[in-house]
């Protein structure tokens, strides 16, 4: 047999101060041209596993590595990441954070310059890579001005020019909108198919990559790693996208991995009566009324005349491309972002009849009317322990001591008081920020991309928290790219494009027919109006 491209031989990784090893006795073999998908719960050690392959663990992160990691025979014990640069390319979650230069062409050349390639070779490879990735028209562009999807493709290109044998991607699409993610995934599959590059990719939204994967590597929370054929590995994995969940419930074997596979199995369901559980129509009181909101950032029109009414007891999802004006609209609704024209009025039960203009309130009063959890939620935390953050939240909201802590225990039980906010998992940190913002008890809560970095269980916990809020008559707005989360959580979907509302209605009506926003279950069972596995369970009854 040929030499494997990547070989892990009884590898264990233990970080200083950790109670146990993050990876336990891992043996893996990855051959040339394979697309390997690494799955697992948040914090299970996916990134650590990828780090061992690139040599960052332990050279960059510290910790103790037992066993051997070999890349085409080169042992990471003797080779630092920089010595492996001609074999392994690494692409991270945030492409902008890894860019060294500032234009596309220079960035593509940077890795080759470090390797000391000849000028003619570099010139040729830059041109080839521009073509392979379809970004030739961006060659002179400034990296900071590109869209997220374009940046990520440049990041892939910049490692590709060094002609590595393996490319390791750690959640390459988690910051992208569905279209940008599709572009990046198409690029990745092209690498595997046309260039015979071995690709190792970790991804939270498994549904996007699973169908292309040759092998699935599952990292358990106990550090045990298993490798297998996708259809077999997903039967027992502790993370499962809707298509797998549906397959498991229906007892299909082998498990379908793509919408196409599942659709062929689900033919019988299409003729069933189109029953679905009725979501209780929301007729809560109007809490926020935005009229003709226009928001500009310099010459750019971010929001162009949006009318929006938010009612109590309703989860509204705000969807649309990157740069469609979702974040600007949320900040404008909260009152911290300036409006160019229009008004946002908040109605409180004990307030004036025609509501209060949030833009006239000061920051402390505003957060009692509308709470906002921004995209980088950790910006809200600046103290050195969870307990101190909770005490501070009680004080600044004028609530009795212990309110915030109580809320936090409801959202995510068991977060220790003395833990530093940075040492929490993504889900726990989100829960702390949510608790801090809910301490002021605002009737309206806005969340900007809250599902980033959450696994399926984390998203389910968030969904329960949001539904608890709406059950108490609050109104929740979630801006997100995550169609599956929307399908399970939202009562209403508002789609923005170029700063204007292009669709506004009940989730079922808006997403089922949309090619970009339809969840997997809807695609599998179309023309049935089902969005989630629960919908199917309700309608089909028992699997046949």
């Amino acid at each position, binding site marked *: 047999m040929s030499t494997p491209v990547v070989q892990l031989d009884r590898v264990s990784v233990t970080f200083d101060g950790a109670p146990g090893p993050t990876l336990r006795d891992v043996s893996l073999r990855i051959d040339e041209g394979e697309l390997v998908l690494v799955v697992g719960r948040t914090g299970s050690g996916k990134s650590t596993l990828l780090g061992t392959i690139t040599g960052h663990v332990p050279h960059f992160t510290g910790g103790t590595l037992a066993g051997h990691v070999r890349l085409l025979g080169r042992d990471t014990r003797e080779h630092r990441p*920089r010595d492996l640069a001609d074999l392994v390319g690494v692409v991270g979650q945030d492409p902008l954070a890894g860019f060294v230069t500032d234009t596309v062409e220079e960035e593509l050349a940077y890795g080759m310059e470090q390797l*000391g390639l000849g*000028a003619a070779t570099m010139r040729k490879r830059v041109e080839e890579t521009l073509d392979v990735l379809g970004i030739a028209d961006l060659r002179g562009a400034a990296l900071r001005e590109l869209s997220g999807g374009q940046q990520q493709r440049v990041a892939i290109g910049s490692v590709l020019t060094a002609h590595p044998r393996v490319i390791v991607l750690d959640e390459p699409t988690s910051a992208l909108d569905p279209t940008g993610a599709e572009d990046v995934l198409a690029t990745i599959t092209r690498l595997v198919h046309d260039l015979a590059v071995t690709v190792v990719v970790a991804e939270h939204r498994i549904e996007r990559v699973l169908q292309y994967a040759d092998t699935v590597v599952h990292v358990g929370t106990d550090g045990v790693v298993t490798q297998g054929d996708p259809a077999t590995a997903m039967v027992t994995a502790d993370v499962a996208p809707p298509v797998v969940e549906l397959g498991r419930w229906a007892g299909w074997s082998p498990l379908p991995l793509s919408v196409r596979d599942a659709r062929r199995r689900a033919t019988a369901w299409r003729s069933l009566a189109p029953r679905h559980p009725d979501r209780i129509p929301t007729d809560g009181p109007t809490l926020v009324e935005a009229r003709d909101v226009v928001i500009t950032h310099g010459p750019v029109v971010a929001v162009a005349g949006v009318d929006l009414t938010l009612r109590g007891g309703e989860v509204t999802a705000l969807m649309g491309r990157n*740069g469609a004006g979702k974040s600007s609209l949320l900040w404008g609704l909260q009152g911290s972002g300036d409006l160019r024209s229009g008004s946002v009025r908040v109605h409180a039960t004990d307030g004036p009849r025609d509501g209060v203009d949030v833009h006239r309130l000061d920051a402390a009063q505003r957060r009692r009317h509308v709470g906002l959890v921004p995209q980088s939620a950790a910006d809200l935390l600046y103290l050195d322990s969870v307990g101190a953050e909770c005490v501070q939240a009680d004080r600044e909201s004028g609530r009795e001591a212990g309110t915030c802590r109580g809320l936090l225990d409801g959202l995510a039980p068991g977060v220790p008081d003395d833990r530093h906010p940075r040492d929490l998992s993504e889900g726990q940190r989100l829960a702390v920020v949510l608790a801090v913002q809910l301490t002021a008890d605002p009737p309206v809560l806005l969340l900007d991309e809250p599902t980033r970095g959450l696994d399926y269980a984390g998203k389910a916990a968030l969904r329960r928290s949001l539904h608890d809020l709406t059950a108490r008559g609050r109104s929740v707005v979630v801006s997100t790219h995550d169609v599956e989360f929307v399908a399970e959580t939202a009562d209403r979907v508002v789609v923005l494009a170029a700063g204007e509302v292009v669709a506004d209605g009940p989730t079922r009506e808006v997403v089922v027919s949309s090619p970009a926003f339809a969840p997997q279950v809807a695609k599998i069972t179309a023309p049935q109006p089902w969005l989630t596995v629960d919908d199917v369970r309700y309608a089909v009854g028992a699997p046949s």
Partner: protein
Amino acid sequence: MSPALPRSVHPVAWWGWALGLAVAVSAVTNPFLLLAALGVAALVVTSRRGSSPWARSFRLYLWLGVFIVLVRTVLHVLVGLKTGDTVVLPLPEVTLPSWAAGIDVLGDVRLEGLLRAVTDGLRLAVMIACIGAANALANPKRLLRSLPGALSEIGSAVVVTITVAPQLADSVQRVMRARALRGDTARGIRALPRIALPVLEDTLDRSLMLASAMDSRGYGRRRVVTPGARALTSVCTLGGLLASAIGIYGILDSSTPGWLGAPALLTGAALSLAGIWLGGRANARSTYRPDPWRAAEWLAVGSGVAAAVAVRVVLRADAASLGMPLDPLSVPALPLVAVTGLLVAALPAFLTPPPPPPATRGTTTRTAPIPVVAT
């Protein structure tokens, strides 16, 4: 001769040209020559600067020059030595106590002294404009890229620092906005830890991510170097440093023997250069599309040197014509050789290739969709 194709001229060539012009100006207080030099610098900048942000910085240097002339004039009026006969502005003189004797505060402003101050200020302003011209013409990032191999990593570090600065501003803004969400709009020293802590964490995170990305892309890779070669490099750099130090000492201290001066300094410089060259060989790095050094580069450097040489020649033959004649006051002369030298320095404005057009983005965001006409 057909006009040269657009390309950017080597940044080192622009610096050579600008330094030549600055050296020429440094010996001149004749306002005609100074203004001619300023005109030459401005002409070359406006016709050969690129489209990058720093290309627009020339104007800032001009304002700095105006500021210098003004400050020099005001200082002259306040405390300067007022020489000459023609009083232009009668002012009372303030008598200072005996411990500050020798300083004239205010007093009649006389034309000769004033003109001396203004031309002195103008000379400094034009020299600064020359440096400004180099800065506007030569992309500093490209200049760093043409550093020798041993220093290229320092160049990378500087480029990264320049790139990170706007990100820091972004993250300060983001944290300020986030604080408002917690109802915290306190300003001043009390708010500092609440802004500084998240910003610092953010910056550290980014730096670590960048360091890790650069590491995995081969930053700091070394060729295998034999111990002998490594020792030789160390000997060259250390020896060069030592010899340079001795040489400088020898030049500054006249009581030391002559061979300790310039010869030692030259040996030191040669050894240091050899050390840098040897060290660069251990670095595997290469440069993508390096700026070529062709006729246009020689022309730019040569024209700068020509200006400097012409002015030096005039300085030897007829030094008075380079100055502002104040005693007696008269119209400054126009030394032909010096003027010709300065005009030669204007040649790059016509004979070097024009700068490449600004890079355009292939796709533009937020343009109105093209209406589709149904047929």
